[in-house]
């Protein structure tokens, strides 16, 4: 009777006391509903961590946050120079737009995976001190990457205008496609972050893997230039349907083909499912593995 009254009291209190019961857990996924609820409750943590990462990156540089625009611009130009030399100067400004969009979209993924791979391992102190859904750590890496991606849109818009490419309503297809790329990045980051806990040399493989991956994407070339006997490379590449449909929508201003969209959706869902399953089913063990 008094217990009921007490309970009502604690509910009213903002700093409500809670009872936590810890019992042995079954193997596999925890109950997802409470897990996602806790995750959502702490979403500010992921945002704050992402913003902090961004601030910390350029803390000591003279140009500071201007590097968020300069860095991708220079990178795009370096690749463009490379392709121009290899091709004997046969590429025009519309190819520059294609290349820039591809490079920036690829960096949305690689920029999440690379720092994300150590998000759990380097979060050791926090993990050992506080209980919270660990998926917030890779999530923050993806948010950082998204925040770094947004300024590159300015660079792209300038190149798009310079190349005289069409501006149509179909460009808006770019938004859901980029969202799918971000979902894929989250799945891949959770996968790599988990792998890094168990195999500490995952991180050493990553730069090479990412380098090969960017060359396997239709970024430094158009997808239809790939010789017949090598097209399988495109089909096993999760980023191919995403980049190709992004190219159709944003570069060319057309409605992306349904097959490419379906492929993008399938890869994004698969990455989230596999990466999420591995990470969340393993995360209760992270504290004793660090």
């Amino acid at each position, binding site marked *: 009777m*008094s*217990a*009921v009254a*007490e*309970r009502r009291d*604690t509910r009213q209190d903002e*700093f409500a*006391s*809670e*009872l*936590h*019961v*810890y*019992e*042995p*857990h079954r193997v596999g996924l*925890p*109950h997802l509903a*409470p*897990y996602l609820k*806790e*995750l959502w*409750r*702490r979403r*500010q*943590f992921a945002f*704050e*961590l992402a913003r*902090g*990462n961004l*601030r*910390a990156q350029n*803390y000591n540089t003279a140009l500071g946050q201007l590097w968020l625009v300069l860095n991708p611009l220079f990178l795009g130009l370096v690749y463009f120079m490379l392709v121009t030399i290899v091709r004997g100067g046969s590429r025009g400004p519309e190819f520059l737009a294609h290349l820039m969009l591809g490079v920036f979209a690829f960096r949305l993924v690689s920029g999440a995976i690379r720092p994300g791979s150590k998000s759990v391992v*380097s*979060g*050791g*102190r*926090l*993990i*050992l*001190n*506080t*209980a*919270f*859904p*660990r998926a*917030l750590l890779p999530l923050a890496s993806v948010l950082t990457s998204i925040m770094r991606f947004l300024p590159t849109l300015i660079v792209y818009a300038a190149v798009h205008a310079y190349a005289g490419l069409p501006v149509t309503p179909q460009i808006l297809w770019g938004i859901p496609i980029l969202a799918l790329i971000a979902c894929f990045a989250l799945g891949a980051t959770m996968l790599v972050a988990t792998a890094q806990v*168990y*195999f*500490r*040399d*995952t991180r050493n*493989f990553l730069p090479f893997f990412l380098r090969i991956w960017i060359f396997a994407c239709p970024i430094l070339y158009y997808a239809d230039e790939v010789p017949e006997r090598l097209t399988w490379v495109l089909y096993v590449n999760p980023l191919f349907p995403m980049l190709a449909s992004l190219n159709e929508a944003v570069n060319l201003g057309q409605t992306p083909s349904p097959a490419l969209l379906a492929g993008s959706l399938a890869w994004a869902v698969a990455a989230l499912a596999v990466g999420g399953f591995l990470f969340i089913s393993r995360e*209760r*063990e992270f*504290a*004793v*593995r660090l």
Partner: protein
Amino acid sequence: MQSASDPATSVEPQLAQEDGWAVKVEDLSVTYRTPVQKRPTLKGHLKRLGRRKRIFREIRAVRNVSFEVPHGTVVGIIGVNGAGKSTLMRTLAGIVPPSKGRVAVYGRVSTLLALGVGFNSDLTGRDNVVLGGLAAGLSRAQIEAKYEEITEFAELDDFMDIPMRRYSSGMYGRLAFSVAVNMEPDILLIDEALSVGDARFKRKSFDKMRELCDQARTIFIVSHALKSIRELANEVIWIHHGRLKMRDEPDPVIEAYRQFLGVAESDEVALEDP
């Protein structure tokens, strides 16, 4: 200060109110496997493929421990290095899941188990305090309300806006301690952190602990500083090889533990904080 993400966590306020415990541990065992190699690498895994070599060592950190602690108790936990004290504390905090048994914790928990503040040394002290609080499930407003108190207690006003990598280790410790004790927890878990900072700060943190004890908070302290334990705690648990070896008032347990260690009571060096 935290509520865990563990699926086994459930909120049942009426139950705990009835029996009035702050912490109830029933037949708790924590066993985990740890790789034998120093650093788990792919090469190591490949090398052992095919060879039937045992690559994991099973660590039974806590074995069949049961105890209940009512609200307002200050519990000292003592034991030799590797006895399972830290694992027990992490289980109470919901960081390491139990392998067997059940742990019920009633109240908001604040932890100082691994100097959690400052986990990202590229960020400023301020960022780290905010991040630590958000991870623990506090709202931005709750953290802001406590922020002044935290910096004032840690005496780091000038340093809060520079990256923590420039901090000295004493400053790290002071900030972490200040965050943990200023969150107004119902239950405070502190692992070997009574001795941070210089002599003056040590005194100050000891006084703060006293104050918290007087406010009828429940506190768990793991420490090798038996003198401090004797002064602060009103109950001491001695853990040995993961088992609860003795639990009683401070004097008899500390005396037994001291005899077990073979250290004389007059040995100031051995018994006080490093």
